[in-house]
């Protein structure tokens, strides 16, 4: 069943950027060493269940905590634990297990998996999904009987599976659903439905990939609990906040999670991981990662073991002569990877290499700019943008910071209808009071699109974030939504 699209206000299409990954998948070599952080994604840190010098197999659980909201983590290689210690990972101090690999490819499968999954009981499936770590996907996780999400399986009303590719660079949904994976995806969706029998499923894909939408809806044809729809790949269409209102027409609980209103948002890789766990007994030890951006010799996808150092994944793929900045997952919201020995965990979907634009350009502001992207229509890229003439992607600011001139670009692109420049003016002048609440500061989903389009180069997104932090300091936290929320008690128990 193909459902109709709903629109959201604002947003921006990142079209034809240089370095978009092609639909080509290669396999990375088994790394000599992996580092597995014990906190990956949204959950709490789990406790290590192995000790130093233990021999481990790929797929073996090495960290698990059934009490707190979390999913187990696994060794992604066969080898020996060499160290368990704290690392500085993405700005948090996290315990991580370092494993020396013996270089073999094999992995240990989970007990109880079955290709005839229909014969398994719900409890058996839940156990497989939980033990494989697949339940730790997204921001909400997949609810099981093992505290893998803040809500229980019965409370799930909707599941949204998305592959809209609205980011400047994203893993190609077409590649993920190629060949056998299409039927795996369909099976995975059916498994999820068996686990969450009260939930309606919505699959949101890039509306421009018509054939993919037809294929997916064909593979799930005679299931009335599932609809497939195309969404315009307008950033930030892949955000939970936007999906909940665009796909379901429901109001998002500001300041909370989609799970709080009984909605679970997953990506395509999460569904494939569910299939792998239940049918093949394979834990989440591999990720498909897009190597995007102009810094790579070739832009493609690479399948790498979880916990591989970034350096290992991109080894030999990077252009040597360029000054590059490596980003994790997103150009707009992702962290810069300053230390390439850090691992890529199971939440990593893309490694982006952009050129450091620290060179000056003669008369930059009057150039016609056939390859310069802009929300305004002041560059020739408007006429030339195509797969052949791609748009440049580098970190140059392109101008000096200037006072706000109320050009309203930020208002026009805001996907949640805020007035970012108005919030900025208040925070800048230290006016931290109810006014900010009134202007909806907590509705901000921090997509950073306002900062992207600002001609005055004001970091609006950061100002709004600071404003929220200051408001909380002042004792004005985000007001509770008027409707009932789920999963709050569990949340407090966990604390």
């Amino acid at each position, binding site marked *: 069943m193909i459902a109709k699209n709903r629109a959201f206000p604002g947003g921006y299409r990142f079209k034809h950027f240089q370095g978009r990954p092609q639909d080509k998948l290669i396999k990375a070599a088994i790394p000599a060493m992996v580092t597995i952080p014990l906190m990956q994604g949204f959950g709490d840190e789990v406790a290590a269940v192995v000790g130093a010098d233990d021999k481990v197999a790929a797929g073996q659980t090495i960290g698990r905590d059934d009490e707190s909201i979390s999913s187990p983590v696994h060794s992604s290689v066969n080898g020996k634990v060499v160290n368990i210690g704290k690392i500085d990972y993405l700005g948090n101090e996290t315990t991580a297990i370092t494993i020396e690999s013996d270089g073999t490819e094999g992995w240990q499968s989970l007990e109880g998996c079955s290709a005839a999954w229909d014969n398994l009981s719900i409890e058996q499936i839940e156990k497989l999904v939980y033990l494989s770590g697949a339940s730790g996907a997204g921001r909400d996780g997949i609810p099981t009987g093992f505290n893998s999400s803040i809500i229980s399986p019965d409370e799930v009303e909707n599941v949204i599976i998305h592959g809209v590719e609205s980011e400047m660079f994203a893993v190609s949904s077409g590649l993920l659903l190629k060949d056998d994976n299409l039927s795996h995806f369909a099976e995975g969706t059916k498994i999820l439905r068996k686990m969450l029998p009260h939930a309606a499923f919505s699959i949101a894909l890039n509306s421009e990939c018509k054939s993919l939408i037809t294929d997916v809806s064909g593979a799930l044809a005679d299931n009335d609990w599932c609809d497939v729809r195309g969404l315009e790949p307008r950033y930030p269409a892949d955000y939970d906040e936007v999906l909940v209102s665009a796909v379901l027409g429901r109001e998002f609980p500001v300041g909370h999670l989609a799970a709080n209103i009984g909605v679970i948002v997953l990506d395509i890789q999460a569904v494939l991981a569910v299939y792998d766990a239940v049918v093949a007994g394979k834990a989440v030890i591999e990720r498909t990662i897009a190597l995007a951006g102009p810094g790579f010799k070739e832009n493609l996808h690479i399948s790498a073991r979880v916990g591989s150092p970034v350096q290992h994944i991109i080894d030999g793929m990077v252009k040597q002569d360029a000054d590059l900045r490596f980003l994790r997952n997103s150009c707009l919201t992702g962290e*810069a990877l300053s230390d390439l020995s850090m691992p890529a965990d199971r939440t990593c979907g893309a490694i982006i290499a952009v050129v450091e634009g620290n060179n000056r350009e003669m008369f930059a502001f009057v150039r016609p700019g056939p390859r310069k992207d802009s929300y305004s229509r002041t560059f020739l890229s408007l006429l030339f943008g195509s797969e052949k003439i791609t748009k440049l992607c580098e970190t140059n600011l392109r101008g000096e910071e200037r006072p706000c001139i109320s050009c309203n670009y930020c208002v026009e692109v805001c996907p949640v209808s805020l007035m970012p420049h108005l919030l900025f003016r208040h925070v800048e002048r230290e006016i931290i009071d109810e006014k900010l609440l009134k202007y909806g500061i907590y509705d901000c989903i921090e997509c950073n699109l306002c900062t992207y389009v600002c001609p*005055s180069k004001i970091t609006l997104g950061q100002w709004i974030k600071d404003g929220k932090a200051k408001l909380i300091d002042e004792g004005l936290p985000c007001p509770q939504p008027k409707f009932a929320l789920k999963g709050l008690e569990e949340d407090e128990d966990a604390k």
Partner: protein
Amino acid sequence: MKVIRSLLDKLYEVPGLQRYKPIIGAADAILYGTNETTHAAPHVVDNIDIKRYMSFVILALLPAVAASVYFFGFRVIAIIMVSYMAGGAVEVIFAMVGKHDIHEGFLITGLIFPLVLPPTCPLWVVAIGVVFGTMFGKEMFGGTGRNIFNPALVGRLFITIAFPAIMSANWQQPFDYSLETDATTVATPLGKYKSTAMAGEVNPTVVEFKEDEANKQVLFTSAAAVEKCTLNPESKFDGVKIYCVGNGAYKKAAKHKRIEESNLTRLFSYGDLLVGKEPGSMGETCRIVIILGGIFLMFAKVSNWRIPVSYLGTVFVLALVGHRFLPQDIAPPVFQIFAGGLMFGAMFMATDPITSPFTKAGKYCFGVSCGVLTVLIRSFTGYVEGVMFSIVIMNAFTPLIDQIVLMFKYRPAKT
């Protein structure tokens, strides 16, 4: 090129020149752009910056400048240069004292200001006006982005009040490049309409000539009005001076047998108004390029369509209704749209994002109010032109309009 680069780099180091850093920095930024990079997410940003944003306004104004030079001679260039130099000096001084970068907003003020002056304006008046406008219209409020009034209009308003003789009567006839101002000045179309309409009847249905009325004159604003009057057998046109607005009325009147050609005058044609062959401020006369420039800016997303459309629409509707009932005071709608500074003001001055409301509803409110004020000032005051006053007045109301719109937009939900 490398010579300039190394020269600039050296200039930064010279200790005596530290005070002039804004000037060096501005030259550097214009020549070479920035080498700054983003330091946090988003790591890649849009290519537009304020320099390009502002230069697009200048780009859209260039055809109007060229038309101005074509119609009024090279003196226009001299006036623009004086404006840039005098105003630029103010901007630089404030940047040096305030120790901030030179802001690009001045590039627009420095060009718009001369374009709204009469072509005969003495250069020293240009300098005084632009200095006043930049200083009291912008810098006193804290510079670009904080000003309440459009600085170009503040300058223009100041010299209108300070030098009324220069600003009200001296209108150079296009193509008359001589500088003997006394001999060549004429009234603008709006002025002509006002004086003619006041002196006689407008669109009468019957014209009667009486002996005691020696200088009887009538004004027809449309071909339909001419027809209505001439079809009336009681109309007598002997010795009556007849003025016509536009070619349609003129041709209709000329065809009529009872009207002698020596008594018939065409005030102006709409074609001349559109092309710019009628007297007026330097940049406002060639309406066709102003319209094109304005549409270009809206397409480039540099200006917003809401203010010009609501502004022009309001003037049109008010004039349409008003002219029917008060033809003596209110000029016909199409004429109002194309006469005076309305097109220029609506396209390039009312749309200034800093001094106009940022809310959508506010923009409509601003445009409609400007339209109402323009028609009122043009029709019922001693001034023939009302665009400048109406925009300045509405500039003052901009913060209030925005506050009211925000109040409604974010009012607490009824419980």
